[in-house]
């Protein structure tokens, strides 16, 4: 279980996170949504240690992990726009990360096969398309079978088949008790997969609950409409203050 308490982060005059508290439970897929610059990516980057929060704490199974690095053994992260060393091949990158962790990439071959990466595995990354790089990013995040998956727009650029397989794989991971947190704008994906919805605006959490509750609260028939309503209400509230 990941517990985030009163997380705060400013970039100059911009408040990216303004007292965010959140509990992400294992065996659930938690979707974080919100407009651009709501603080979603910053929240995810704080979890994996790319961004240092100004205040607050992040704990995994009761152990505070801010400022540490060993806990990242338990995390797989998919970046928003993954780019890699241009001259290396995906296979070299996998070997490098396995050497770095001192373990074998247990799921590497299975995931490469799942996403149909076979011929691309030995080609320099500079020759691979955006979608293929995205698939490689997914493989790199999941190949060590981490307990926690942190994913920032993981399906952007994926073809329908890869997107379908990604969803199936995510369901399997949930069934295995993994803790999954995804930042995304794709409503169809969210409706299909989300066990829990977190709506962020201006660095704060405005809604945290199951998608069905979001539909009830908004009085809307689709999640897309419910979230759009939350954005409008949030923007109006911000304008008023």
């Amino acid at each position, binding site marked *: 279980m990941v517990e985030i308490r009163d997380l705060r982060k400013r970039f100059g005059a911009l408040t990216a996170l303004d007292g965010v508290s959140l509990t992400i439970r294992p065996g659930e897929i938690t979707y974080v949504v919100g407009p651009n610059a709501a603080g979603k990516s910053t929240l995810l980057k704080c979890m994996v240690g790319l961004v240092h929060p100004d205040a607050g704490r992040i704990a995994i199974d009761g152990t505070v992990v801010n400022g540490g690095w060993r806990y990242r053994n338990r995390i797989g*992260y998919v*970046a928003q726009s993954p780019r890699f060393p241009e001259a290396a091949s995906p296979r070299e990158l996998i070997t*490098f990360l396995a050497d770095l962790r001192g373990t074998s990439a247990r799921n590497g071959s299975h995931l490469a096969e799942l996403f149909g990466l076979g011929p691309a595995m030995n080609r320099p990354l500079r020759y691979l398309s955006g979608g293929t790089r995205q698939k490689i990013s997914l493989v790199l995040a999941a190949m060590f079978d981490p307990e926690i998956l942190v994913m920032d727009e993981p399906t952007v650029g994926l073809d329908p088949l890869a997107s379908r397989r990604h969803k199936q794989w995510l369901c399997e991971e949930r069934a295995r008790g993994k803790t999954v947190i995804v930042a995304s704008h794709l409503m169809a994906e969210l409706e299909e997969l989300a066990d829990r919805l977190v709506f962020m605006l201006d660095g704060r959490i405005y809604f945290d609950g199951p998608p069905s509750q979001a539909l009830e609260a908004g009085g809307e028939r689709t999640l897309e409409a419910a979230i759009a309503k939350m954005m409008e209400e949030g923007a109006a509230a911000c304008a008023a203050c």
Partner: protein
Amino acid sequence: MRRMLTVLRFNLRELARSRWVAAYAAFFAAVGWALLSFGESSDQAAASLLNLVVLVVPLASLATSVLQFYNSREYVELLLVQPISRRTAFAGQYLALSISLAGAFALGLLAPFLWCGGKGEALTLLLLLVAGLLLTLIFVALGFLVSVRTDNRLKALGGALALWLFFAVLYDGLLLIVIMAFPTQQLPALLLGLSVLNPLDLARLLVLLRLDIAALLGFTGALFKEFLGSARGLAAALAVLSAWATALILLGARAYTRRDF
């Protein structure tokens, strides 16, 4: 240590594929060969190479480290989400670039001397090598430090070029102003102190004191020779250059550790 060596090995392999590092070695080899083949003496060739080393090595080290930092930004993010400390990641990246540039420089410098049948004095060549290696360590660290402190690639590159211009050109102008502004009796100690603040001047001294033409550097070199003597001057210059490298590496590592990616 195992993690640092893994990062170092991977980065070295990536850099070895870069044509830029090979071009850097070829540049020094070509110039060294031309100076040794067509120059009047090996001392003259060493002095000419020295001028080239103190200008080109810092510029190339600064520019390469800034560009390398921004080009590998996303790779760094991939690296930093692994179970690895920021200091280890910094050490691996910094050492890989320093070793690549220093290796290319050493290869480019030594090849023409060996090609010309060991022409020239071995100690002078060694000092030229040491000066270039220390300048590489210092200016790669400075380049990393500048890059880590800003998100803007152009701003970082501009800052790096401004620093190079300051150390290579403007600093001597400042020394001239000091010479004109202060009474003659206070100048020796003052200039001695000021020369320590410019690693380029110190690198020049390393070689010039050996060539026995310290006057070429003007006041600073003559002073080092007069006050410290050649051997002590060399040791002092080496110690201060090493201190420069250490301080900048530590500052770079600190900034890298605190940075948000």
